[in-house]
């Protein structure tokens, strides 16, 4: 089994069910050939088709960036807003009409540089809005400047001597903001994207999904270790609720905690998964382990993929004047 791919939802759909293409607009996407956005568009529209919601009740809202062009290519209602501001518009849409399914599409510059404040407050308020962060670790649309997720030292057009600061880890930040659903997927894994997007939709409250996105033009190969066929077994770990955290060829490496630090434990060929192996619990009240998993990554440890956290909390926008829950 491929650790970065999880089984898609396979329930057979009646022949009259809407298909993915019903959710694609007539505009031809204008991304660079090979851009990771194509895969996201595909998975998102497939997810839309599977929600059982009519097209008009879906709203796709974005900021500005290559990735933020996505609403033009869906056949839902859409709003291509301002750089960094999609969460504010989305919240207004959702509060004005709670019946709508509202999706925010954002880039790493959009959501974490100019728009990080809105992202933070969206996540802490917990409205029933879904936000995808398409993280290519670069400003694509403006042709290659450093973003808040660009790794330290990276040379870009705006950092000829290397990025001088520590990147934001989007999943860690979302957890600290108190987001009730937090996940990470790779643009190459359509099946996992669809599964996670559908789970985000099903979640009652805010959902934040980081998509590791490859920008072929300005930062190609940023996630190669995690997504390439040759290396992904060793650098991608698909988390499963209740299951031990395993990865590697034949899942022969387990994560264990040692004095609060996470380590990889190689397992023998036939060795049973030991007791001490960490198990994934996205419903834990405590975000400590989730934050540690979020920070993990190559070269020492694998990058964790899947749902980090999924808990219930009062949903914002169910009017507090009328609904005692919120």
């Amino acid at each position: 089994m491929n650790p970065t791919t999880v089984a898609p939802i396979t329930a057979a759909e009646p022949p009259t069910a809407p298909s993915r293409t019903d959710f694609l607009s007539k505009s031809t996407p204008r991304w660079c050939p090979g851009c990771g956005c194509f895969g996201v568009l595909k998975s998102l529209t497939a997810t839309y088709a599977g929600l059982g919601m009519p097209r008009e009740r879906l709203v796709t809202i974005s900021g500005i960036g290559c990735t933020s062009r996505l609403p033009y290519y869906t056949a839902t209602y859409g709003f291509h807003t301002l750089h960094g501001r999609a969460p504010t518009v989305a919240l207004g849409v959702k509060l004005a009409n709670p019946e709508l399914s509202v999706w925010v599409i954002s880039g790493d510059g959009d959501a974490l540089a100019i728009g990080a404040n809105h992202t933070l407050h969206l996540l802490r308020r917990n409205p029933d809005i879904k936000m995808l962060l398409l993280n290519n670790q670069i400003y694509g649309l403006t042709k290659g400047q450093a973003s808040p997720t660009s790794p330290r030292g990276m040379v870009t057009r705006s950092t000829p001597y290397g990025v001088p600061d520590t990147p934001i880890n989007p999943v860690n930040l979302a957890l600290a903001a108190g987001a009730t659903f937090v996940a990470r997927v790779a643009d190459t894994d359509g099946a996992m994207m669809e599964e996670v997007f559908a789970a985000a939709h099903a979640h009652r409250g805010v959902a934040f999904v980081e998509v590791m996105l490859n920008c072929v033009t300005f930062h190609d190969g940023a996630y190669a270790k995690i997504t390439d066929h040759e290396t992904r077994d060793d650098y991608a770990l698909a988390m499963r609720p209740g299951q031990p955290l395993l990865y590697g060829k034949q899942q022969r490496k387990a994560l264990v905690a040692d004095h609060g630090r996470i380590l990889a434990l190689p397992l023998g060929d036939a060795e049973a998964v030991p007791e001490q192996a960490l198990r994934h619990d996205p419903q834990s009240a405590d975000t400590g382990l989730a934050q540690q998993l979020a920070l993990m990554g190559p070269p020492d440890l694998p990058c964790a993929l899947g749902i980090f956290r999924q808990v219930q909390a009062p949903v914002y926008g169910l009017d507090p004047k009328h609904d005692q829950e919120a």
Partner: protein
Amino acid sequence: MNPADTAVDLPDPDLIQVQTMDEITVKFAGDSGDGIQLAGQKFALLASAAGETVRTLPDYPAEIRSPAGSLGGVSGFQVRTGSAGIYTAGDRIDLLVAMNPAALRSNLGAVKANGIIILDESAFTAANLAKADFSGNPLEDGSLRDYRVFPVPIGKLTRGALKSLGLSNKQTSRSRNFFALGLICWLFPRPPAAVEAWIAQRFAATPELAKANHLAFHAGWSYGETAEYFVNPVRVAVDPQRRTAGVYRFVTGNAALARGLVQSARRAGLSLFLGGYPITPATEVMQEIGRYRDPDVRMFQAEDEIAAIGSAIGAAFAGALGATSTSGPGLSLMGEFLNLAVIAELPLVVIDVQRAGPSTGIPTKSEQADLLQALHGRHGESPLPVLATAMPADCFDTVVEASRIALRYMTPVVVLSDLSLAGSAEVWREPTLDELPEFTVHRAAASADFQPYRRDPETLARPWAVPGDPGMEHVVGGLEKAIDSGAVCYQPENHAAMVQLRHDKVAGIAREYPASTVHGDADARLLLLGWGSSFGPIREATDQLRRHGHSVACLHLRHLNPLPRDLGELLKRHRAVLVIENNSGQLWQLLRAEYLLDLQRLNKVQGTAFRIAEIADAAASLLETLA
């Protein structure tokens, strides 16, 4: 003039001769902990109940509380009451109630020569005098000789009246405002029973306080009756006004703005969404809306002004009447989003309750200097309608008009109010929903050839298809749009045409304005032209000048963009036009550019409204030069 030699010695016999007055301006002033606002408001309400026309102006201390008794901590409430023709809370004070030396010092300059000052002599301690920067005691050093001063030991008398309750000094001193109110109510006179009933009701939750305030009020009243100071109560002469049946309320400008938004949405059959962020002096608009329990009236306190307007735009996209309220600094942050609303053509009302700028400026002072920003504070060619409010109750009507325009023309609209209207109040009968103008809402009906930017031929408004409406799914955004289809379009001629269309749509709004009405003779030699809160003083100055036989008229603009179509012609009818603004000449500049007319101007940028006399004097001198 007959000033008392020393104000302290004897009650001035003049008082008797002024017992019946056309109008009177009373100011309550004291420490911000002294309950001044409450006493002042009650006095105003009583006057209004007596059929008088009432104008009020509160006057808060600077934004952070200062130590008790200090000059920075003085709070005031000015009430002017009289017949129908009054429009401001008064240039100068006839009667000042000063609860401490700081209150006296801060307001003395505004008291008329020979005006009456009632003051709490118990508060004129050495410590308080020092805090108010008095070197001597004005009660003793003759410095008040130009006024008729009545020192009353309000503190001591209140303590005495409340002795039976066994309260601390601090507690009794909280009732001093009721003593003062009682005294004033005797003086005018106002029915004490009404006040006593109100005290019982208002303090029902704290019977001890109710009792204390009742006793203090009563003591004040009795003091008036027994003290030899005041020989006769004052009566204000009132033209009995016929009031239409309905609910009357004492409404501040900010409350009227909030109410106007709510009723507009209801009239249009929509829900209201206001995204806001606190800022002086606009905060109450947002807070008022937050008090509704109606699920169709929603207030969202955002993380900042950008999110506030962004959420309002989102709500408008989703089919609500979107709104936001702020002041200058907030408006400066909203430019980018306002531009998005312009190009997305969504109905949005943006309220700017102006304060003195630039930058943080003077947050507790008033100004009308955001007009050019409202017009031009965005990159590119980005036209939108701008309206201004003139009086507290007019805030309601103006916001209704703004909402009507926003929906009928599918456009953001900026409403300019200001600090001097925000907190001042007047009695007002709210129109019923039926009495409001009709609203056009361009909700689109699904059709095979639906196009999100195909315009209504009359208004040039685009149709409003909102998420949830089947068959009309489309994407809006900030990139230039193709005519009709609304698709992204970089084509040069299309861009030029869209720039023109957006311009024409806004310019076209003026077609529907009622004819401009000049107050006074249409061919007066001098026209006083204003906008916003300078309405009151301009109107009264005009009336005053006309009473003195001058050929003066006035015109007040609610619509600042587009300007009324008949305005140019109208301006040309007068020998001179004086444009009066609390800024350095922003409307004046616009009118010069528009009509190429060499207009006169009168500007005041001091954080305070015009006094009637300032305008009347300037107009009179100008008239002389015309002669």
